[in-house]
């Protein structure tokens, strides 16, 4: 195109309302074609945090809670805790065997289980060892590595009660020994009363089959309890008249008290919350208006209230809670906050429907000492410097 002609064309385009003017000199490249299974943007890098160990099959990875929105944890970022690696189980070959103190022992295929009436519910899952770092004098530097062994999903499955009705519990049936098909055949005991309450045989997670890391093709879900009790890769339910006092419910996941006695079957996760923004490792670019946000949850029903402090706990104000608030699920809280550029110490404090108030670290230690290891649900303080750097506060 000659220059004169182009000028004419531009004029013509302008006369038509700028349509020609907006056209780029270079042609745009087409985007990626359709695909069978979507991937997240190449620019999003959130990942679970793992520690290097010599036994990577037995360990945990934590959810980047500060990089999630709302209350649902993306399945790919759900925290992990495995004791013998993640098995690759063909669902067509998987069986759940229910035996012991039952009238009719039963073997169910996954097709059998999916044929039964199902429910979908949003529930958090938290490792009994989450926030174990906080018992020590040196607390976790960021949300992910101190509170990230907790996640929340929509789970789909069959009420366990329905299946237990089908097998018929004998009169002396009082405990249920759940066992996984992973290499270590993880085994935990649960009181039958809980099995008959709201426990699920779950096969769905956030609209698709369970992720292998969360127990594909079938897991036990006892909402609100410590994660370890919710056996993944579930292949056996042995109905008994006593707990089996397995390794993971006696020598692990028990809370050692200062007097040398250890509490066992401390199953419900008590009310807990953490501010995810601003939180450790983040930097505020400068004074101004921000939305403080975080997550709260309790193993005893619904979160009723979350308060936030900006002065290290001297004064508290109510945060807004996202609705709907599901029982035994993450609740998102928010609070607009104008940072004046001065150092601040912030934290959140949750109250659940039983009236239980999330304790301070000091209150927990006064009650349990520093060697109980598990089930830490204390308030997490973040310190904001005048430069806007957010770090874990010294304790």
């Amino acid at each position, binding site marked *: 195109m000659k220059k004169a002609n182009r000028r004419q064309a531009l004029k013509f385009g302008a006369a038509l309302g700028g349509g020609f003017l907006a056209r780029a000199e270079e042609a745009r490249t087409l985007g990626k074609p359709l695909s069978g299974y979507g991937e997240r943007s190449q620019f999003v890098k959130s990942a679970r945090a793992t520690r290097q160990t010599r036994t990577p099959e037995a360990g945990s990875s934590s959810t980047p809670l500060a990089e999630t929105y709302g209350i649902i944890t993306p399945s790919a970022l759900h925290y992990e805790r495995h004791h013998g690696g993640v098995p690759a189980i063909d669902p067509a070959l998987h069986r759940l065997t229910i035996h012991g103190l039952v009238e009719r022992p039963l073997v169910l295929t996954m097709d059998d289980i999916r044929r039964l009436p199902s429910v979908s519910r949003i529930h958090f899952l938290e490792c009994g060892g989450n926030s174990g770092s906080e018992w020590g004098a040196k607390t976790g530097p960021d949300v992910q590595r101190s509170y990230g062994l907790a996640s929340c999903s929509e789970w789909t499955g069959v009420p366990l009660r329905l299946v237990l009705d089908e097998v018929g519990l004998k009169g002396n049936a009082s405990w249920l020994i759940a066992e996984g098909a992973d290499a270590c055949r993880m085994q935990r005991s649960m009181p039958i009363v809980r099995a008959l309450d709201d426990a699920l045989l779950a096969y769905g997670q956030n609209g698709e089959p369970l992720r292998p890391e969360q127990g594909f093709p079938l897991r036990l879900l006892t909402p609100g309890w410590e994660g370890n009790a919710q056996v993944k890769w579930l292949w056996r339910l042995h109905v008994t008249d006593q707990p089996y006092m397995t390794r993971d419910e006696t020598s692990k996941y028990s809370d050692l008290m200062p007097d040398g006695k250890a509490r*066992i079957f401390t199953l419900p996760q008590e009310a807990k919350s953490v501010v995810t923004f601003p939180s450790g490792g983040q930097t505020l670019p400068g004074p101004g208006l921000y939305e403080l946000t975080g997550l709260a949850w309790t193993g005893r029903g619904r979160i009723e209230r979350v308060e936030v402090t900006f002065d290290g706990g001297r004064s508290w104000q109510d945060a807004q809670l996202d609705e709907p608030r599901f029982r035994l699920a993450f609740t998102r809280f928010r609070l607009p906050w104008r940072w004046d550029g001065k150092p601040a110490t912030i934290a959140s404090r949750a109250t659940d429907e039983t009236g239980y108030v999330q304790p301070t670290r000091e209150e927990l230690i006064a009650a349990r000492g520093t060697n109980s290891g598990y089930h830490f649900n204390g308030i997490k303080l973040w310190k904001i410097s005048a430069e806007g750097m957010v770090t874990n506060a010294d304790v």
Partner: protein
Amino acid sequence: MFSRAPRIAGLAVACFFATGLLAQSPRYGVGRTPTDQEIRALGATVAPDGTGLPEGSGTAVEGRALFALRCAKCHGEKGAGDVGPPLVGGRGSLATPKPLKTVGSFWPYATALWNYVNRAMPFNEPGSLTDSQVYAAVAYILHLNEIVRENEVLNARTLPKIRMPNRDGFVADPRPDIKRN
């Protein structure tokens, strides 16, 4: 034409009885009854009182060689721990500022040790020990903790009788336990 109908009917009746015998779930008619063999094939599962322990037996003397070969790499030759946790020591430490939780100092039931070793150990090849080897490994670990004698035979009858040092060391969940003003 006429001769086929009874055959089909016969087949249907046979199928009805076949599924009638196998389908156990009364309301939804799903699943089938496992055979005893199928349940056994899932592996032993052991109660604190020893219910579920299989036949077989072992002593600490037998367990010593096995432990050196299959366990020591992770737990150390004398069970002091390495990649794997320590299995020995810590008696009397639970109420101190530095508690050491081991089989000897912490585990409440010897039967649970058998159950765990049988299902989960050795870490990189669980399920590879025979029942008698599990008894022997358990005997050796308990011997290292001075709980059984070197030649004491552990089996389904003797193992449940062992009283672990921390047998009474566990209490029920008293939470909520935080006192507030």
